């Protein structure tokens, strides 16, 4: 018998937890940068289209797969997918749904710990007297585990462990008393903090507090449509990619949360409610803070330069400086709210990452909730330490690329094929509409069967063989040179090897050689973790056979 007897406290709690799972740091840091880099206002059209034909179908697929597996007492993807077809190999595809979460949590909790630390530094006034370079230098020193401003030895490690302890303790309290309670507090606070900062983003005035332009400049930059970009496959690929990351689909967390829903209860409306809540946070709040404030104080050229470093650079190296242009008190309050909302966005997602592993141990090995939660914390600590200690050697980015990017697309592609073609769309449609509190548009039966898998396949192939500079026209004309960001060139470490061949400075050569070593070591570690989970799934399967449960 499974030790897993958990339930959600309320429907609103489940929706907030599911929305919290989807809302992450990417809503505030990744979306605006993607929009700026991909045609401004015109990005929103492919983005919303991808949400309608890929995001919503994937949400419905994952919610219904989860609820279907839950009916048989399964709360993690290996055995959820196992119930959907007799081929025994499916459960090993389901390993992605545990592995991704453990691997992502390992670096995500570190990222989350930065926000916790920055909340404290904002309140302590650390950034008050610093110029922009000073704030950027603070970040660089922080991640290199340099000297601690507050006198705490190994400050990033301390905050990482604190953050992990907090996550683990909340997870150990259970679904209703832990995860759901945090979502009920965190999500409303996140929206309140976001609304305040969005208001500040909309009211930047040229000449006031050192602003060099009005909010309108930044908002124009972000929202002016560039319709020429609509025909670019790169923009559509970026939009489809953003929908993935923002909804946390292809991870196994949605399945796990939905597996605690009974078969007579609704999932169709729940999925729409949680999905649109995530879109609200991303499109309305996420677009109104980072870019308008940064451009207001730094100008378009500087921000264009900074977005090349990604949203993390702007969020951690620039905004703390800009907030303190509003004065010490408002600067501290804005810093507290910005990093506080990032923290809530982060923790509601990292808690979701812990639940599939805990559900797996409870279902298959009869573990109780508390030891299962602490085992998750321990694994994440061990697997996460390399991202903390060897951050400058690209370990963090390597985890993010393979576990947080590539594997999501791979798993989503497999699960969509399983659901629509192997399990069968007629049965799948019955699962989606069973107990539904809304009329699910019938056209989605065909979208899920044809459009979503094709789109996912295109996203995967597009990422596998991305042409140089995203120039698809040139590639289709016969000149197909792979970009360094393509999966194939990533596997071959083309970019690193080129840098190594061009380097002449011995220190740079040493740094690159070390990076190459750590990059390859990270991959071996991630593969080893995947194989270990697959072995556990095999042991669990054998146990089931012995007990006559299969």
């Amino acid at each position, binding site marked *: 018998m499974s030790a897993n007897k958990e*339930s*959600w*406290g*309320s*429907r*609103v*709690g*489940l*929706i907030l937890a599911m929305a919290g799972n989807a809302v992450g740091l990417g809503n505030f840091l990744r979306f605006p940068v993607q929009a700026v880099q991909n045609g*401004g*206002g015109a990005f*929103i059209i492919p983005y*919303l289209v991808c949400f309608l034909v890929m995001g919503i179908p994937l949400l419905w697929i994952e919610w219904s797969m989860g609820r279907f597996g839950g009916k048989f007492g399964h709360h993690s993807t290996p055995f959820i997918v196992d119930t959907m077809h007799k081929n025994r190999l499916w459960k090993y595809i389901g390993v992605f749904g545990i592995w991704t979460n453990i691997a992502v949590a390992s670096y995500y909790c570190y990222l989350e710990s930065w926000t916790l630390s920055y909340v404290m530094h904002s309140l302590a006034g650390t950034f008050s007297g610093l110029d922009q370079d000073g704030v950027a230098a603070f970040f660089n020193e922080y991640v290199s585990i340099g000297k601690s401003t507050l006198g705490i030895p190994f400050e990033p490690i301390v905050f990482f462990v604190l953050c992990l302890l907090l996550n683990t303790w909340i997870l150990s309290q259970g679904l*209703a008393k832990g995860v759901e309670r945090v979502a009920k507090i965190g999500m409303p606070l996140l929206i309140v903090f976001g609304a305040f900062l969005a208001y500040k983003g909309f009211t930047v005035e040229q000449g006031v507090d050192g602003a060099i332009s009005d909010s*309108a400049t930044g*908002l*124009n930059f*972000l*929202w*002016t*449509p560039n319709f020429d970009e609509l025909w670019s496959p790169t923009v559509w690929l970026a939009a489809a990619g953003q929908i993935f990351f923002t909804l946390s689909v292809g991870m196994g967390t949605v399945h796990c949360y939905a597996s*605690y*829903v*009974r078969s*007579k*209860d*609704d999932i169709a*409306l*729940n999925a*729409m*409610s949680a999905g*649109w*809540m995530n*879109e*609200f946070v991303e*499109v*309305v709040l996420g*677009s109104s803070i980072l870019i308008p404030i940064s451009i207001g104080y730094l100008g378009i050229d500087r921000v264009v330069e900074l977005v090349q470093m990604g949203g993390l650079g702007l969020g951690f190296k620039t905004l703390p400086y800009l907030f303190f242009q509003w004065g010490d008190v408002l600067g501290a309050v804005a810093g507290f709210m910005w990093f506080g909302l990032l923290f809530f966005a982060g923790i509601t997602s990292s808690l979701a990452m812990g639940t599939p592993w805990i559900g797996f141990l409870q279902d298959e090995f009869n573990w109780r909730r508390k030891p299962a939660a602490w085992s998750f914390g321990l694994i994440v600590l061990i697997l996460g330490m390399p991202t903390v200690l060897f951050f400058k050697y690209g370990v963090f980015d390597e985890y993010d690329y393979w576990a947080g990017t590539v594997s999501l697309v791979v798993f989503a592609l497999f699960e969509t094929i399983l659901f629509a073609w192997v399990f069968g769309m007629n049965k799948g449609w019955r699962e989606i509409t069973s*107990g539904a*509190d*809304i009329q699910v548009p019938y056209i989605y039966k065909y979208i899920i069967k044809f459009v979503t898998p094709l789109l996912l396949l295109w996203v995967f192939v597009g990422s596998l063989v991305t042409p140089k500079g995203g120039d698809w026209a040139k590639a289709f004309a016969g000149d197909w040179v792979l970009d360094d960001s393509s999966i194939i060139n990533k596997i071959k470490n083309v970019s690193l090897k080129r840098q190594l061949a061009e380097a002449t400075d011995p220190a740079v050569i040493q740094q690159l050689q070390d990076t190459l070593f750590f990059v390859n070591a990270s991959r071996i570690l991630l593969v080893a973790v995947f194989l270990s989970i697959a072995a556990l799934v095999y042991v669990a399967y054998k146990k089931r056979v012995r007990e006559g449960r299969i």
Partner: protein
Amino acid sequence: MNTSALVVMLGTMLLVTGLMIYFFMRVLNTPPKPEPDSYLDNDDEPERQVKP
């Protein structure tokens, strides 16, 4: 702001906010299914007890 940016921004924000509110209100206004349902908090409400 220029007109096209304003139209795209307001159109998108109103659409997304409107749909978010609409679906959340539907959740709040839909009566729960009879017991036993998926949620613990309403289990003790007298009117939701299963009649013998």
